C-alpha cells in the first residue's frame, strides 16, 4: 500500500516560506510527477514526504496514519537521488543489500531479492564491482535496485535522470515506466522536464513558488490548463500567448494557441508575419514568426519539411476550437 496525503503541509526556512500550506492526495499505485521550474519547491516537497526535511506545519499521512514525526528510516519509503548517492566503498551487491541488512532480513532472503533485482535491472554481471567502475546509467540502475529490493510503500525519485545523456535518459524513462507497470507501487517523481512529466505520469502536479498550480492527468493539463502558468509550462514548444485587441475579439484578456494548432499558408489567413528562425527536426519544423503585431514572436509547428525560408511572408490560421482563453488574473475562461 502506498497512499500519501498531505494536509495543510507548510515549509519555511527561517523567515522564508518555501511552501505555503498545501493539500495533496496521492493514491495507491499512482505515478505522480511533481513538475515546475527550478526553485519551485518540488524537491523540498519530496524531501518533506521522505522525512529528510521537517514540516513547519501540517500533517503527512502514509496509508492513513500520521507519519509527520516519523524519521525517514521508518516511513517505509525508498528514494532515488539525483546524484545516485551510492555508497562508494561498497560493491554493487552490498549497495543493493544495504537496506535489507538494515531491516535485518535473513542472508538467504537477501540473496534471493538481490539476484531478482539484478536480473530485472540487467546488473548481474556488475554485482561485484564498485560504483566508481560503473557508467552513469548503470549507477542509476543500482540506485533503483537499492530502492526496489526493500519493497517500499512508495518510491520517491528526485530528478533521477538529469545526470544522464539524452539517449540514455529516454531509455531509463521507459525502464522506470515499465517498472511501475510491473510493481504497481506508488511512485512520486520530481523533474523540471515537462516531457518526462507528460510521458511518465498518471497525474502531474504543477508547482510554482511552492504553490500547486494544477493537478491532473497529462492530457488534462495539455487540453485545459487552469491558468497562464500551466499553459506556458506544459507543451513543447511553448504555447503562444497573445494579448490586446486580438484577445478581446475572443472576449478574453489573453488567448493562447499551441504551435501545433496553427495552420500555415502562403496566401491566406487572418494573421500575417515573416519567417524568422526555423528549427528543422526532420519530423517537424518549428518556425518563429516575426512582425505579426500580436506578440514578439509566434512559434508555429509544421509537420515534416515545408518550403519556407527566412524573410518569406506567411499567413497563419489558429484552429478555432483550440484557442485557450484567460481572464485578467490569468485564469482560464470556459
Amino acid at each position: 500500500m502506498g497512499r500519501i496525503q498531505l494536509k495543510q503541509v507548510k515549509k519555511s526556512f527561517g523567515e522564508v516560506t518555501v511552501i505555503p500550506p498545501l493539500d495533496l492526495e496521492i493514491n495507491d499505485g499512482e505515478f505522480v510527477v511533481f513538475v515546475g521550474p527550478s526553485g519551485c519547491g518540488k524537491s523540498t516537497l519530496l524531501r518533506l514526504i521522505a522525512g529528510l526535511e521537517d514540516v513547519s506545519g501540517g500533517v503527512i499521512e502514509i496509508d492513513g496514519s500520521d507519519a509527520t514525526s516519523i524519521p525517514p528510516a521508518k516511513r517505509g519509503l525508498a528514494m532515488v537521488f539525483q546524484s545516485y548517492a551510492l555508497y562508494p566503498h561498497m560493491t554493487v551487491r552490498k549497495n543493493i543489500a544495504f537496506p535489507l541488512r538494515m531491516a535485518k532480513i535473513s542472508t538467504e532472503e537477501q540473496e534471493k531479492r538481490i539476484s531478482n533485482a539484478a536480473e530485472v535491472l540487467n546488473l548481474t554481471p556488475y554485482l561485484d564491482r564498485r560504483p566508481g567502475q560503473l557508467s552513469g546509467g548503470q549507477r542509476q540502475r543500482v540506485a533503483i535496485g537499492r530502492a526496489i529490493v526493500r519493497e517500499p510503500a512508495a518510491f520517491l525519485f528526485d530528478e533521477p535522470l538529469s545526470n544522464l545523456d539524452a539517449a540514455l535518459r529516454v531509455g531509463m524513462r521507459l525502464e522506470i515506466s515499465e517498472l511501475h507497470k510491473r510493481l504497481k507501487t506508488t511512485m512520486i517523481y520530481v523533474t523540471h522536464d515537462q516531457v518526462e512529466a507528460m510521458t511518465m505520469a498518471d497525474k502531474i502536479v504543477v508547482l510554482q513558488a511552492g504553490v500547486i498550480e494544477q493537478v491532473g492527468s497529462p492530457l488534462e493539463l495539455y487540453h485545459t490548463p487552469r491558468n497562464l502558468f500551466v499553459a506556458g509550462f506544459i507543451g513543447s514548444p511553448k504555447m503562444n500567448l497573445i494579448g490586446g485587441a486580438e484577445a478581446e475579439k475572443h472576449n478574453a484578456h489573453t488567448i493562447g494557441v499551441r504551435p501545433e494548432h496553427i495552420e500555415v499558408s502562403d496566401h491566406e489567413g487572418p494573421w500575417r508575419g515573416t519567417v524568422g528562425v526555423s528549427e528543422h527536426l526532420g519530423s517537424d519544423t518549428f518556425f518563429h514568426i516575426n512582425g505579426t503585431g500580436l506578440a514578439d514572436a509566434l512559434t508555429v509547428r509544421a509537420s515534416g519539411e515545408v518550403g519556407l525560408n527566412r524573410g518569406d511572408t506567411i499567413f497563419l490560421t489558429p484552429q478555432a476550437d483550440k484557442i485557450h482563453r484567460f481572464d485578467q488574473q490569468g485564469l482560464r475562461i470556459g
Partner: protein
Amino acid sequence: MARAVTTQRKTINTIIAWTIGLLIFFPILWIIILSFKAEGDAIKTPIAVLTSGWTLENYGVVQERSDYAKHFFNSVILALGSTILGLIIAVPAAWSMAFVPSKRTKDILLWMLSTKMLPAVGVLYPMYLIFIELGLLDTRIGLVVVLMLINLPIIVWMLYTYFREIPGEILEASRMDGASLREEILYVLTPMAIPGMASTVLLNVILAWNEAFWTLNLTAAKAAPLTAFIASYSSPEGLFYAKLSAASTMAIAPILIMGWFSQKQLVRGLTFGAVK
C-alpha cells in the same frame, strides 16, 4: 584546454623544483653527513668535511651517554597519546560542525584557529604555574594534554574539511535505507572518512613528534622526549657538532621513515578540499 608545455619549459621547471627540494633537504642531509664524521673533522670547511673519513663512533658515544630508548618511548607516547586524545575530542566536534552547522560554526572555527596565532611563550608562565599546581611538571600525561590542545585546532579543521567533502545525499540515502544514526555513522560515514582521518593522524603525529617548545620547558628527565635528547647535546660542555648531529639523526629518523612511507596519504590529506 590544457596549456601546452614545451620540453624546454619542462626541463627548466624540473631543475627549479629539484633545486628548491634539495635546498630544503640540505640541512637534514648535512646533519646526517656530520653524524658520521669525527668530532675534529665536523668543524672543518665543507669541502674538508666531505673528504674526511667516516666513523660510527658518535652513535656509540651518544647511546652510551644518554638513554635513547627512554626518550624514544616518551616521544611515541606523547605523539600517539596526544593524537588519540585529540581525535576523541575532534571527531564529534568536526562531525557536528560539518553536518549540523549553526550560524556560529564559521566563527568558532576561526576562533579556534586564532589560538594558533598566539606566541606560545606568551602563555608559558601561566602554564608553568598551572603545571606546578597540578603536579604535572615532567609527567607524560601533562604533556599529552598540552600537545593535544596545541594541535586540536588543526585536527578539527582537517577533519571538518574532510567531512564536508562527504556528499550529504549519501548520508540521506542511508537514512532512507533504514539506517539508524549509529548504523549511518558506523557503516557509511566512517568508512568514507577513513582516508581523511588517516592523513589527520599522520600529520598530527609528525607535529607532536617535532614539538620542542613545550616539551623542553615542561619536562626535565622522566617525561623528556627526543627533542630534549637532542637539546642535551647543545649545552654546557661546549659544541659537539658530530654528536649533536648523531643525536638529531637518531631523533628524526623514525618520523622521517614514517613520513616517507606515508607521503602519498599525507599529501592527499593536506591538499584535500583544495584539489578535487
